[in-house]
């Protein structure tokens, strides 16, 4: 009996059908350690192994792109998928749909891996952090409208600063959709633009509950925000990726609210202290000025202004004397020079030279005269200047500064004391320009303090 001879394809197709028709193998969970991991294209190739066996696996790009962590050799995982046969290589393998690190570890793993990656990308750099405003006019809050966080935040804000504007950008804060909604809520506030600071957070919960705040999409939204963000997720002990990326981290939503606004009473107190300081200063300052003024008024130089005038007169005389002696000396010098020049001229014999010298002499002479005239003009100017200064010191110029002189009228006697006059007397007050005639209606004996 001739045995039936199958082609390779027939055998392989048979095996393929056997495996792929087995329902048990079409949705299977397999636990093992990753090895031979490679990703030559965007599909992932690896094996799962335990002590005794090895199973080839492939994860296509459309499934792999949803992974929240990166596969690596040695990692203990659970993979779900279906067994199939790749005929060209006669190879059966697991077509992976989903894969998780063993146990809850994958949450930590995803957290650590994303933290490392974002750290490398510079998401946590201090120079990227925006400063929180000192006194925000409007505060954005990204959280659930039904959660405990919003209640806590509103309570604290109300206590610290009762008249604040708050804009809630609502989102779910746990579950599959939460991360996307949180990111969108942050972007909405950025698009709206009129808030000065954003609080992003939620109350405490399990690691899974807080996990949306560990997702890349949220990290990106926080990193890209142009408005400073304070992250407040869970309790003191909970640390999330959001906390690292945010401009500031608060341990709880209440703490974030406290960090965001100063206490109104404190600010009012500070302002009050400034007001007091300013008033106190200006009072003291004016008092000291008044004292200085009083001292000046009683000083001798004001009482006898002519002392100063006398000194100036003497100085002027001295100047005049020095000037004329200087002038005499100078002209003597010039004369001597002229004599010696004339002498030299007489000594030089050739006619031409004599003529030349004669011309030179003429020029010298003219220059000499010019110099003399110029120097005399300057001296005259100087004397005029001195005269002008003298004039400015005359009593008339004092009138120009607003003082006035009072005479009795029509006698024209200078009035220096109020006792010289009585009620009804006529007086003439000489001003800088013109005079005023008036009649005394009241006499005050004592000087009144200004």
């Amino acid at each position: 009996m001739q045995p039936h001879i199958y082609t390779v394809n027939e055998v392989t197709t048979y095996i393929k059908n056997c495996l792929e028709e087995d329902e048990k193998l079409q949705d299977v969970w397999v636990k093992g350690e990753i090895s031979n991991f490679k990703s030559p294209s965007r599909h992932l190739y690896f094996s799962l192994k335990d002590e005794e066996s090895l199973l080839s696996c492939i994860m296509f790009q459309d499934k792999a792109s949803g992974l929240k962590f990166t596969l690596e050799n040695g990692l203990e995982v659970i993979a779900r998928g279906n067994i199939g046969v790749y005929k060209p290589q006669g190879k059966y393998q697991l077509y992976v749909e989903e894969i998780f690190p063993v146990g809850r570890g994958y949450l930590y793993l995803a957290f650590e891996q994303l933290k490392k990656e974002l750290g490398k990308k510079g998401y946590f750099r201090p120079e990227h952090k925006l400063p929180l405003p000192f006194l925000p006019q409007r505060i954005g809050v990204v959280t659930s409208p039904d959660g405990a966080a919003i209640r806590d935040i509103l309570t604290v804000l109300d206590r610290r600063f009762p008249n604040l504007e708050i804009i809630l950008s609502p989102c779910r804060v746990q579950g599959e959709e939460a991360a996307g909604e949180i990111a969108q809520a942050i972007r909405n506030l950025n698009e709206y633009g009129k808030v000065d600071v954003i609080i992003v957070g939620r109350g405490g919960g399990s690691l899974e509950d807080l996990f949306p705040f560990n997702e890349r999409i949220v990290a990106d939204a926080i990193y890209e925000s142009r408005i400073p963000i304070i992250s407040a997720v869970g309790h003191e002990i909970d640390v999330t990726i959001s906390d690292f990326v945010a401009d500031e981290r608060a341990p709880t939503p209440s703490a974030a609210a406290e960090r965001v606004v100063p206490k109104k009473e404190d600010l009012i107190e500070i302002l009050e202290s400034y007001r007091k300081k300013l008033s106190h200063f200006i009072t003291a300052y004016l008092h000291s000025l008044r004292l200085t003024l009083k001292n000046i008024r009683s000083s001798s130089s004001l009482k006898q202004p002519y002392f100063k005038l006398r000194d100036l007169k003497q100085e002027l005389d001295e100047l005049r004397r020095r000037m004329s002696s200087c002038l005499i000396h100078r002209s003597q010098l010039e004369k001597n020079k002229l004599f010696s020049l004339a002498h030299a001229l007489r000594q030089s014999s050739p006619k031409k030279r004599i003529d030349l010298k004669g011309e030179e002499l003429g020029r010298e002479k003219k220059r000499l005269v010019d110099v003399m005239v110029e120097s005399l003009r300057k001296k005259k100017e100087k004397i005029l200047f001195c005269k002008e200064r003298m004039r400015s010191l005359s009593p008339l110029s004092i009138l120009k500064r607003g003082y006035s002189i009072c005479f009795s009228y029509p006698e024209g006697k200078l009035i220096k004391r109020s006792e010289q006059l009585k009620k009804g007397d006529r007086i003439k007050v000489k001003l800088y320009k013109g005079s005023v005639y008036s009649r005394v209606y009241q006499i005050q004996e004592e000087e009144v303090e200004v």
Partner: protein
Amino acid sequence: MKFEEAMEKLQKITQELEGEDLPLEEALQKFEEGMKLVSFCERKLEEAEKKIQVLIREENTLKLKDWKEEKEDEC
């Protein structure tokens, strides 16, 4: 001007008044400016009005809704 800028200016003015020997006119001017800044800051503190609103996206435009009204609607 922002509140904190005004506060900084105020601090500078008080320091100048206390530290330097200013002529009368300048001192009076600074005093006046300082007092103005104090009332500006006080006004700024009272300026905002307590209001809680909810930012939502409807047909791709952002809208503000009153938070309390929304709560009442739900009830």
